[in-house]
């Protein structure tokens, strides 16, 4: 097993460069591999195709929220309303499709639109009303959750139409639809952040807002788009979860914002902006997913699970920071 725990030092400069061209930090990949190896040793149920799908399925909603968090945090912003907006979107989608009896496509559209509107309001308030993002999105956290409870009357809205269900429960080629949508979303988001002008502007904004402004980036507009995108992604997550359980659940996504932000930070996103990559975030989300899955397979009591997750968070970010500081000293 010790070969799985190779120290970063054994990698040559060339190998490191080839990995980092993909915008991920070697250290977090190492933690993921080591963690998986550990779980495989500890539990006979860990290494199977069906369990791999379990992990990806369990990571799909959090993973999509983590993509949103990477964009917003990378730009020096913060979105604490992710989990609540996810819950609201699922309820709105279910309300439109079930209570209003609208066609499936409208239900799907309503989920993403509801999220996008919540995000757009966040963006407007942050850029035009000059309320700090922390407060705006914290306020939206309460607003969206409350609205979800109001619309649903506090109960789950059950019985989604066929097409919406397919998005959550369909299994083309044996792969759950949420996993396919998650991976596709991550791929697109990675390309946008790493290779487009929009992505470069996002990270430039996080690096230094004044410098970005001086360079001619339309800072406010960029931020509004980012918050709207973040809300729409939360809407997508809400859609997938609703479709999985065939109902809009007003309590869905409770506290997910913190898990999503955690995944982004473990994946190397700088909490204060300027640095971030979607591939890194995916590794961060998978670290959390593998850890949770492994601890579940081992039937570790939930109290200890929370401790283990907290410890791994600190450890993963410590390793990452250690490497960053070492490089900057050279």
């Amino acid at each position, binding site marked *: 097993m*010790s070969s799985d*725990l*190779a*120290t*970063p*030092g054994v990698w040559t400069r060339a190998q490191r460069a080839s990995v980092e061209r993909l915008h991920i930090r070697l*250290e977090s990949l*190492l*933690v993921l591999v*080591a*963690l998986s190896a*550990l779980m495989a040793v*500890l539990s*006979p*149920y860990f290494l*199977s195709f*069906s*369990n791999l799908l*379990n992990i990806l*399925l*369990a990571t799909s*909603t959090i993973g999509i929220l983590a993509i949103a968090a990477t964009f917003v945090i990378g730009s020096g912003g913060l979105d604490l309303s992710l989990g609540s907006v996810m819950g609201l979107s699922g309820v709105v989608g279910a309300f439109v499709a079930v209570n209003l009896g609208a066609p499936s496509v409208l239900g799907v559209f309503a989920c993403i639109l509801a999220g996008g509107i919540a995000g757009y309001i966040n963006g407007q308030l942050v850029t035009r009303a000059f309320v700090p993002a922390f407060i705006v999105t914290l306020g939206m956290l309460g607003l969206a959750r409350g609205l979800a*409870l109001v619309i*649903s009357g506090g*109960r*789950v809205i*059950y*019985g989604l139409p066929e097409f919406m269900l397919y998005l959550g*429960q369909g299994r083309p080629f044996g792969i759950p639809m949420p996993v396919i949508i998650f991976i596709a979303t991550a791929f697109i988001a990675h390309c946008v952040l790493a290779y487009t002008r929009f992505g470069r502007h996002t990270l430039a904004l996080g690096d230094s807002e004044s410098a970005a402004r001086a360079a001619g980036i339309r800072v406010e507009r960029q931020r509004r788009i980012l918050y709207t995108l973040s809300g729409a992604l939360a809407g997508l997550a809400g859609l997938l*979860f609703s479709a*999985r*359980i*065939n*109902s809009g*659940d*007003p*309590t*869905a*996504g*409770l506290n997910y914002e913190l898990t999503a932000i955690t995944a982004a930070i473990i994946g190397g996103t700088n909490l204060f902006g300027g640095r971030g990559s979607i591939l890194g975030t995916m590794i961060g989300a998978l670290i959390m997913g593998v850890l*949770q*899955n492994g*601890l*579940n*397979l081992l*039937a*570790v*009591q*939930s*109290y*200890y*699970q*929370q401790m*283990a997750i907290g*410890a791994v968070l600190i*450890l993963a970010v*410590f*390793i990452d920071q*250690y*490497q960053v500081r070492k490089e900057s000293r050279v």
Partner: protein
Amino acid sequence: MIGKMLRMSLVSVAALSLSVLGAQAQDGQYGVLMKTLSNPFWGAMGQGVEDGAKEAGVDYFVQAVESDQAAEPQLNVCNTMLERQPVAMITAAINSTNLLPCLKAAQEQGIKVVDLDGNLDQAILDKEGIEITFRIGSDNVAAGAQGAEYLVSQLGADATGAVLVIEGLSGNITGQKRAEGFAEKLAELAPGLEIVASLPGDWDRGKAASITNDIMTRNPDLVAIFAANDGMALGAVEAAYAAGKGDQIVIIGVDGNSDAVKSIKDGRLNASVAQLPYLVGKQAVENVKKALAGEEVPSDIAVPTLVLTQEVLDDGSEPLLEYVK
């Protein structure tokens, strides 16, 4: 240095896991999925499962999530439990739909599914084509009604005055059922007692105390408070005594937890409709064993609730008292 630290941490995580792991999985296990363990109610139910399993000589593993609101995490835990291929899944779902995909998969694998504490909705199960072996739990509507019966037995059917209902977390079905059961029965037995407010206390003792303060100010003629759980009832007790109205207001909780029992003995809380979670857990395991052996098991097993008052506790002859933890 990093490698060393990483190794050390992994070893300690491994040690931690192994120390809490106990026995590794074997065939013929019962999987028990709770909501959360950080609550005396679920703790007592877990204890009942453990004792029931020991007596019946069956192997089981229990899992839970961090809070009784973690719907998707519970679904994920449920899915991973299926990897261990248990013979039965005894599940206390967080809401009526969050476990549906997992329960369906369990059924397809030939695993018997049990609804612990009655959180599933039969109409939804029928539509999804999920057949559960049985449901077991206490009837929350009946528990609320028992609270109303106790209140009327204290104040009389002709009593008049304002009544406050403190509900559970907004959107939680258990709290809703208790509040509904109480309101319906009260309207039937003593129409003169008017519910002037029914507010969500979010299962929170402090919030319940604030609500009580507010309503005592608004309705000085408040004669009774029904809270959907004991924690909130105890918050209401504190607020009522602090306002000097402790002995004028009848306060009733639900659950029968140890704090409530102590408060009733001290003559502060008037009554608690005790659920018997220990008995629910124990009987669940016993009935699963019967069902697996091919015996007939009723599809709906209602575990009784018991109104705890100072008299009942002092008297001590009620046989169900043994299960009040």
